[in-house]
Structures are given as C-alpha cells and as structure tokens.
C-alpha cells in the first residue's frame, strides 16, 4: 500500500506520525511550500519517508485549484492508495484530490464546511444544533448590528483561519472599526484570506460555566473531542479538557483524560456526534470544540475535519492507550475502524497534559518590561511523584517579557507532562501555574 502525505504547518509532530504511517505503507511526502521547512523537518522527511517531493516551482500557493491539481499529480505519480493531510491550510485541497482520484477522504463538501466557519454555522443551523447567533462580516456595521441583537460582546473570526489567528473580541460598538482592522492586519503574512470581502464572520461570544460541568475547579468552559469518521460513521475516541484561558483569549493548555463525570461526558459526546453528522464527513480525523453552557447543553465552537495540532494527539494516545494516527491510516487505506470508541464510564489509568506559561502569569512582584532570567524554582520541583516531564522548553535568558494583548505566540515556558494519576497530574498543573515565578536577568 502507498500513502501520499501532504505536509505543511499543523497537526501532530512529523516525528510522531511518520513512523506510524511508515509501518503501514510506503510513504511519499509532498511539500507544497518547501521554502518553509526548517533543517529538522528536512532531516525527518529524508529519513522518515521513502520519497519527498519538494515543490519549489514558482506558483501562487493561495490558488487552491492549482494546489489540488498538484496534489493529484503527486498522488498519481506515487500511485497512492490514500492521501493524508494534517494541515488546516491544505485540508480542502487534499480532500478534493482524494475525491478526484476515487480515494477515501472527508469528501469535498464536508471538508469545505469544516474549513469555512460560516458554512459550518449554516450546516449546524440546518442540523438543528444549539448555535450561536452569527452573520457574515463585511463592515463594522455588521458588528454593531449583531452586538445590538445579542446585547453583549461579540467575536470577529476569519472564515478560513488557522491557529486562532485573527480572532478578536469586540466589547463596545465604538471599537468595531479598529478591532476589525486589527483582525485583518494580524492575518497579513499568512496564507489565509483576510482582505477579500466576506473573509470574516462575527458571532456571539458564548459564556459557559465550567463549575456546572466539572466536580473540581481548574478548567475552562470549553472542551474538545478527538475522534474520526469512517465511511460516514463517527467514532469519538477521547474528550480533552481545556485549562482556563489567560485573558483575553490566550490558550493555556489541556489535559487528557477528562475529569467530567459520566453524565457530562455523555452530553459532550452526544453533541459532538450530532455536530460531526451535520457536516456530512466521510472518512477523516476530527477535532470538535464545544462550549459548556450554563443550561447543561453544549454549543459548538468549531469542527475540524482533521486531527488537532501539536501535542493533543500524542497526549490522547498516551492517556487512552490508543493510536489515532494509525486508526486514520487504517480507515483511509482499508475503510476499517481500528479505533476504540469512547466509553463514558471508563477511567484510564494514565494522564497527560500540556501547559503553556506566559510572562503575565509569572511576573510575581516584578513589572514589565523585564528580561527573563529563569524561574525561582525548577518546574520539576513542583510536580507530584507520579508525574514526569515528557517535554520542556523555556525562553532563553534575556528574553524580554512585555505587556501584550495577545500573548499566545509569546509563551515563556511549555511543559508536556505524563502521569499515572489524573488527580496528581491536575494538582501538578495547578501548582505550576500558581507558583512558578520568573527571576529577572541580572544585568
């Protein structure tokens, strides 16, 4: 069997998924933007794939039809039996190529609905799910009108964005023009549509209530569901809990398995299933984000026809003893489901978490701007005995911690934790967030 991987930014790490695929099929990797590869990626590709096609022709990488044509050509040349793409930017093009070649995939219609938040909202509305109030955004008048309708703050979102870029909150009507301009400007430089008319939508800002959903504190009002669709049948595999955002919208981390009780898990899984069904996907990975509402229902934030990025898949695999990448490969190659369906009553014996720490949380008595000189204690000293550090990164000495509205790219440290006790892992995460303080670099 042969698999063509379309590789770009996003999804589980290359070092994580390549070996899993290689153990199942002969692998060729097509890279539409090879100029963006770093030396580590080059090395991993050259050793992890049988063939690597670096497309360094000069062509407009925003041209989705041309991209799809090139993916088809690469797949035909490789005689691929399946196409795999973990990147949000190339999901629809890969889906289109798979459909043209008669290969399994999400289907072009489903992939388009997952890629475009406006189409997603329309599909959810048609599917009868609890939905936010929303409208296409062409000018600040649309923002003001929706704010008037919902009576509160709203969110501006690019219809086809990535990594939460361009998502901004509007609290007052007089901020609408400036925030809209700022949102468009923040997308410049990334290959996502921002300047074309109708590239954004505006939607109601939902407020969930985690205290009604979790038996213990320390979680946000949002949750994720990892799974896949195999020949139209949705297979949820895991629920990922999300730790509270660093104001206003900065993601701070996630924990697997979930700490919800059984009834809450059932409600989450039920909503995820109906949401995925509304998109009409055929065969693909899925990542569903839900808001935990005060009335006990879940509202859909987003559905992706691909797996989550970065560490969520490795964490899920570790905590639940599953192999999501392998399951996807089996589904695409053979049409079979090798994934174990989520059991709301199961209690996994392992746990994993990702923690992103930001300067604003670790200042202690110091004021910005301040140069990072390390932490007062080593993060490992704050962990329970059953928790190990599976990965760690911190900024170099001298890194300047400044006031920033959007801190997401400016993390100070990242921890990837694994343990044999969910309770102790949760406690460790809380302790790290609460007690880790930076030390200013000595001049």
């Amino acid at each position: 069997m042969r698999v063509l991987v379309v590789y770009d930014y996003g999804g589980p790490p290359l070092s994580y998924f390549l070996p899993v695929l290689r153990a199942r099929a002969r692998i060729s990797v097509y890279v539409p933007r090879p100029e963006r590869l770093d030396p580590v990626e080059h090395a991993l590709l050259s050793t992890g794939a049988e063939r690597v096609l670096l497309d360094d022709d000069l062509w407009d990488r925003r041209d989705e039809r041309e991209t799809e044509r090139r993916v088809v050509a690469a797949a035909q040349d490789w005689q691929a039996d399946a196409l795999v793409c973990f990147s949000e930017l190339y999901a629809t093009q890969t889906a289109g190529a798979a459909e043209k070649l008669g290969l399994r995939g999400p289907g072009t219609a489903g992939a388009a609905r997952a890629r475009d938040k406006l189409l997603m909202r329309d599909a959810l509305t048609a599917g009868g799910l609890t939905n936010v109030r929303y409208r296409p955004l062409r000018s600040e008048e649309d923002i003001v009108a929706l704010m008037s309708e919902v009576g509160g703050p709203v969110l501006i979102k690019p219809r086809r964005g990535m990594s939460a870029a361009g998502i901004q909150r509007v609290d007052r009507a007089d901020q609408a023009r400036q925030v809209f301009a700022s949102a468009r400007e923040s997308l410049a430089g990334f290959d996502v549509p921002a300047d074309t008319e109708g590239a954004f939508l505006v939607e109601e800002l939902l407020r969930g209530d985690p205290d009604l959903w979790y038996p213990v504190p320390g979680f946000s009002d949002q949750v994720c569901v990892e799974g896949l669709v195999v020949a139209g049948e949705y297979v949820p595999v895991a629920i990922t809990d999300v730790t509270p955002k660093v104001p206003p919208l900065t993601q701070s981390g996630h924990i697997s398995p979930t700490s919800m009780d059984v009834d809450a898990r059932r409600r989450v899984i039920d909503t995820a299933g109906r949401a995925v069904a509304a998109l009409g996907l055929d065969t693909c990975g899925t990542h569903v984000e839900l808001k935990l509402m005060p009335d006990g229902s879940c509202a859909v934030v987003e559905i992706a026809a691909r797996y989550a990025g970065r560490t969520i898949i490795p964490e899920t695999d570790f905590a639940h003893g599953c192999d999501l990448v392998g399951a996807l490969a089996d589904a695409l190659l053979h049409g079979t489901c090798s994934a174990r369906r989520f059991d709301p009553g199961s209690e996994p014996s392992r746990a994993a978490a990702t923690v992103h720490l930001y300067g604003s949380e670790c200042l202690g008595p110091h004021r910005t701007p301040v140069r990072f000189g390390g932490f007062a204690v080593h993060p490992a000293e704050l962990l329970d005995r059953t928790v190990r550090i599976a990965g760690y990164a911190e900024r170099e000495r001298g890194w300047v911690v400044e006031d920033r509205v959007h801190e997401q790219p400016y993390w100070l440290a990242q921890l990837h934790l694994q343990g044999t006790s969910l309770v102790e892992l949760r406690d460790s995460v809380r302790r790290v967030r609460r007690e880790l303080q930076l030390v200013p670099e000595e001049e």
Partner: protein
Amino acid sequence: MKWAEWLPELARIGDDGLRDRTVDVLTEAARRGGWADPSIMWYVEETASGAPPAVRTEVKLVDHLRLVAAAAADMAEQCNRVVGSRTVVDHVLVGGLLHDVGLFELFGPKSPTEPAVPVLRQPLLLRHPYTGARLAEEMGLPTEVVHIIATHSVEGEHTKRSKESALVHWADWATYDVMRAALFPHVPQERAFYYYTGVAS
C-alpha cells in the same frame, strides 16, 4: 509602524525627505512580507548552498540594521574628519538601515503561534540584495543608495563599490563576526561567503 522607535538611527539622517523615503521603503517591505510588527522578526541568513535559511533567534533584524548603520556612519564620520574623504554620511546611514530591507519582503512570519520566525514566502531565486535594491529603486531612492543595497553582500564582489557601499559592506561583515562570536559561536561559518581564504595568491 514605529520605525523611529525601532530604528533611532533614522534621526541621524540630515535630509528630511530622504529620511521619509527611507521609512516608506521599510514600511512597504514589511507590508509585502506580511509583517504587521516587523520589529519582532528574528535575523535570518540566506545561504548560498541551497540549505534552508538560518534563523538567528539571538538577535532581531532591526537590531542588526541599527548596528550596521551606526557602525558604518561612525566610520564615515571618522574618515571625513581624519582624511577628509567627503563620504556622504546620509547615504551611508540610509544604506545601512536598508541594506537588508529585502529580507522583510522575502520572508514572512512562519505562523500565528510563531510570528517572529521568518520563513521564505517563495523559493529563493533572487536574494535580498536584489529585492531590496529593486524596492528602493521603485520607491525613488537615490541611485547611490540603491547601489549600496545591491552591492553590500557577495553580489558586490565583482562590482566597483562606492566608498559609502564599502563602509556598509565592511560594517555588515565586521559586526556579523562579532555578533556571531558573542551570540551564536557554535554555528559553523558558511565559507562560501568568505573570499579571503588566508592563502597567498
């Protein structure tokens, strides 16, 4: 964009019109590369070998521009004072501040979660001296300044450099050696860019 804050050496330029056009070139280069905040972009070295560009997270591009402009301008002023060279300091300053402006256009931010990391926006067929000089010429900078941008690196090795260009060229390479020794000494030097082999010809 806060160029006056990011590049205080702009204030040393005596000609107001030339300073304004310098800022325009910087702004346009950043816009083409998609840099909403060009001050965060890390320094990056294109390579001649076809290997991926080398990103230096120890220093920002704007700090490198400042360093080269200040060093070259200081040398120009000393040359004028000591030997009466009549070097045009304004051209040295503008050439120094813009010598790597092509990098803003060639590279874009890698991702929303890594906005400071520069990645090529297209396969590299024209290096930054070309793209920077082209932009400067399009936007009406004096030919003397366009010459500095075009010849400051290896592309200028087979060109007769003006004295202003020579100062920017040597300031660029001298400060690079010091910067490398201080900040990333473990990185091997790409010999292709050195033409002094130490062997007597």
